[in-house]
């Protein structure tokens, strides 16, 4: 019984590998054939815009704080109407580990990962991308979302004037 099992166990692998020998390999021949990764794939990072075309990023530094390898840096500034934005915004892709934590941290859905994985380059400085390179003319994922229509200081609507928002809370009225 044991011997029979051993013989079977010795011969069966040969049969299986012979079958595989005549099966088409699963390899994707990269430069000629390209794989389209799923939409939520985490590769090149972009800054998206609101549906009305304005920049989403409010330079809150949350992405840069969340980044485990500290590859995001920016300079925050404020418009005359109190709307914050980044004067410059820089991602060092030579350092980025494509963990996607920045996209998770972002309250405005500005920073997003995309499936564009072909960013390798012989010149490492070309991997340091500035705001011009990062900003795209679209909304990316969550196309409808505009942060200032749900929250934030009065840029689109008055402070606390959005439909799903309470007015400012008086902390002195919150006594137990």
């Amino acid at each position, binding site marked *: 019984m044991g011997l029979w099992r051993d013989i079977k166990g*010795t011969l069966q*692998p*040969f049969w*299986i*590998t*012979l079958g*595989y*020998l005549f*099966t088409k*390999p*699963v*390899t994707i*021949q990269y430069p000629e054939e390209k794989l389209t990764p799923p939409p939520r794939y985490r590769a090149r990072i972009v800054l998206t815009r609101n549906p009305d075309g304005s920049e989403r990023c409010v330079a809150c530094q949350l992405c840069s704080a969340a980044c485990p390898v500290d590859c995001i840096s920016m300079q925050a500034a404020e418009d005359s109407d109190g709307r914050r934005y980044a004067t410059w915004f820089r991602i060092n892709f030579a350092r980025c580990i494509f963990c996607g934590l920045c996209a998770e941290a972002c309250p405005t859905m500005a920073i997003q990962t995309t499936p564009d994985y072909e960013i390798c380059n012989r010149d490492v400085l070309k991997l340091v991308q500035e705001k011009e390179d990062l900003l795209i003319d679209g909304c990316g994922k969550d196309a409808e979302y505009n942060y200032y229509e749900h929250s934030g200081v009065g840029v689109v609507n008055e402070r606390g004037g959005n439909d799903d928002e309470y007015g400012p809370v008086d902390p002195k009225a919150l006594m137990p």
Partner: protein
Amino acid sequence: MNDLLISLILILVKLGMIFGVVLSMAAYLVLAERKILGRMQLRYGPNRVGPGGMIQPLCDVIKLITKEDFVPDRADKWVFLFAPGLTALTALLSFAVVPFSPPLTLFGREIPMVVCDLNIGLLYLFGLSSLAVYGVVLGGWASNSKYSLIGAIRSLAQMLSYELSLGLALVPVVMSAKSFSLTEIVMSQADWPNMLSHPLAFLIFMTSIAAESKRTPFDMPEAENEIVGGFHTEYSGMRFGLFFVGEYINLIVIGAMTTVFFLGGWHGPFLPPVVWFIGKVLFVAFLFIWARGSMPRPRYDQLMHFGWKVLIPLALLNVVITGAVLVAMNG
């Protein structure tokens, strides 16, 4: 005098041909092994350099030659430098006694298609395969590295114990051919390959020769995932290349040995004898590559158990039975 000169020239021509064929076959066997293994694992294997990866062996050689030839600190320098050559050399020398086809008759001369038809060809092969152990053991010993030493000790024990069953498996073949000469052994299989008349000896031979040449189910001396690279851990560049090429020349040698001893050598219908011979050698090489793609490596003690407790008694039994049958048939 003139006769001697012609014989000498003929031998040199044959030597050159064999070296050329064997070395290029070894180079392309590496490629073939990588491609076949790749396909068995649902990949393509090397296919970038040249059409279908055909220039890959050349690139590998260039890479190996241009790499640094590194000798570890406190290694036994001369032994270290000398060992890889020994492995490749013993493998190459084995071809001297392998007959490729029946004697040709050219210009009224009979030319045997073997470099040197020794009447003890089989013993010569065994002698060389025992010497091949030295390349491995010396390389491992001289490296001054524990992995190399473990690999060397393993290969010593393994090759010595499997040589016994290898020799015993060939005794029935010698008994039925009544000669140690490889040509005679092939002649004796004109109508009936030994594989069919001595099936048990064939199986024992295939197993032991795989162990003897450190092919994968029995590659404990190298065992990448246990002892890094075994005896060649410390080798780099072309010295590693020599071990590597030696291994593939060895694959051709065992292909040739299996063909001569069990598959009927050059005998076969329709095609010219040389084609049959090379075809059979390549087929055996494919079998070993196939085994590499299919079999896991046993544990070291299991290997020793199998060699001493299963193969050697079986081989001895086989010798006794063959002897009895031969006596019964003659008497």
